[in-house]
């Protein structure tokens, strides 16, 4: 489950953190396996032609998880891995939140929460108007779906029967301040989505094989969008960060902390 590839992608995250000495580490670590499956076996794309018309559209709505996105995009050759070593530098294309069109492979600039799903709905509607076959996938955080605009988008996706749209929730149960159950409880989350007209799937968001099997089920329906609730662990792979809200964002990291992270992921 936590194989070399998962470790390698996490090491790429640390490479960026090592340069920037900062970053949303916890929110990136919970995403690694989901993004790995997306880019290894599910999404259609061409890293040499990121705007290829037939590509699948993928939006990381939780833009603060961009360290994981940059890692997989570099791994797939959208840009050189050397670029990772410029993270958050003045002239870098890789900032603390991902931006279109600076970063090849990034469909939408995100960071302000609650925007990506509406943009994804628009893309899925556009695909329906033009009878295009590509799919649209959006990842939000669980804290992110506190935003009311998300639920406007959910109603709209359901109204338009967007079977070409899937929403993936990185449900790491922890937002910046603390537990989502305490800050603004989302449960019963699956029931909420069922009542909004979505097909609901749940998956262990760190189990690559389970995630792969889940992607194979999409589209789950001909007339409904799908939500996949991915049960994850914030900070996964770094025991001192796992489930610890202090690791949501770090604005200073010592050389020792970085060395510890590399050691754990060796």
């Amino acid at each position: 489950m936590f194989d070399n590839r998962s470790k390698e992608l996490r090491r790429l995250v640390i490479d960026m953190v090592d340069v920037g000495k900062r970053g949303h580490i916890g929110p990136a670590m919970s995403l690694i396996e989901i993004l790995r499956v997306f880019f290894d076996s599910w999404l259609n794309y061409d890293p040499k032609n990121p705007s290829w018309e037939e590509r699948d559209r993928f939006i990381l709505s939780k833009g603060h998880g961009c360290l994981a996105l940059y890692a997989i995009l570099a791994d797939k050759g959208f840009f050189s891995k050397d670029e990772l070593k410029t993270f958050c530098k003045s002239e870098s294309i890789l900032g603390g939140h991902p931006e279109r069109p600076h970063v090849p492979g990034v469909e939408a600039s995100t960071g302000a929460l609650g925007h990506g799903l509406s943009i994804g709905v628009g893309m899925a509607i556009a695909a329906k108007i033009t009878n295009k076959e590509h799919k649209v996938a959006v990842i939000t955080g669980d804290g992110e779906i506190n935003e009311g605009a998300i639920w406007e988008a959910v109603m709209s996706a359901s109204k338009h029967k967007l079977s070409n749209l899937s929403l993936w929730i990185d449900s790491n149960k922890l937002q910046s301040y603390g537990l989502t159950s305490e800050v603004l409880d989302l449960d019963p989350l699956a029931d909420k989505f069922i009542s909004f007209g979505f097909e609901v799937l749940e998956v262990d968001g760190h189990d690559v094989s389970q995630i792969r099997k889940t992607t194979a089920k999409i589209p789950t329906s001909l007339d409904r969008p799908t939500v996949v609730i991915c049960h994850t662990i914030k900070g996964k792979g770094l025991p001192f960060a796992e489930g610890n809200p202090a690791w949501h964002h770090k604005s200073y990291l010592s050389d020792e902390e970085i060395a510890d992270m590399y050691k754990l992921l060796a």
Partner: protein
Amino acid sequence: MRKTSLNSVYKLAKNNKKVVYIGSDLGAGILDNMKDEMPERFFMEGVSEQHIIGMAAGIAMEGFIPYVNTIATFLTRRCFEQIAVDLCLHDLPVRLIANGGGAVYAPLGPTHLAVEDIAILRSLPNMTIIAPCDADEMQRMMPQTVDWPHPIYIRLAKGGDPIVSRDELGFTIGKGIVMKEPIEAVYVTTGVMTQLALKASELLHKKGISSGVIHMPTIRPLDEKLLKKYIPKVEAIVVIEEHRRIGGLGSAILELCNDEMPEETSKIYRIGFPDAFADRYGNQNSLLEYWGITVENVAKILEEKLKIT
């Protein structure tokens, strides 16, 4: 004006398969012809303005030209972040057709007035702001919106406003229009305040005072070239706008002068709404009157301004 703008959307959509209409929860029957003939490009999405902006952004990213239509103040106050991030940061060709710019919704109270919308949007890079003065100008303007490569905010007036724009003066996004050549003084206006300025100018003419009128249908980008040509030539510049005096056309002109011809700044007087929420209802005209925006008063202000200078 509103009817003309929607008829234009219909015509544009008939000729261009990239044109899409997205309304929120507007009056029954709106654009039924488009709904019937092009249902795949007609959307009525409910009272979910924030989502609508994001959805329009996603549609525009796929090469379409969405015309989003709802009440001006809900677009600007509620959706500021969506407009800033989804539309302006991505610099997408989404058009916002804003019903009830200014004091149109006076009887509905301060929740519905759009009197700081220009200030809000003028602060955003890539945004274009257009306030036509009448239905004819709306008709001239709309076809130009199709190919404009940036987001546009189109501020609608009440409708049924007297036609003062003239075909021979044309319309180009980003260009001001000299409606009446300035000699001693000039009114600079936008939207339907141009009608008011033309009447005031007529009144002053009878008193032997010569005043020109420059209509600025595009507030952003500001036609700096035109303003820089005329401002130094006249003794007084009176800006009239159906908007708070904070942050609108008058502020834009003051900023231009401050940056490029500071010696002209004292010639400028701004007429607009005060720094307060409306404390009464009535109608558009009664609210304008309450806040001192009448033909007689703006004529008097220009006359006094001339005396001072």
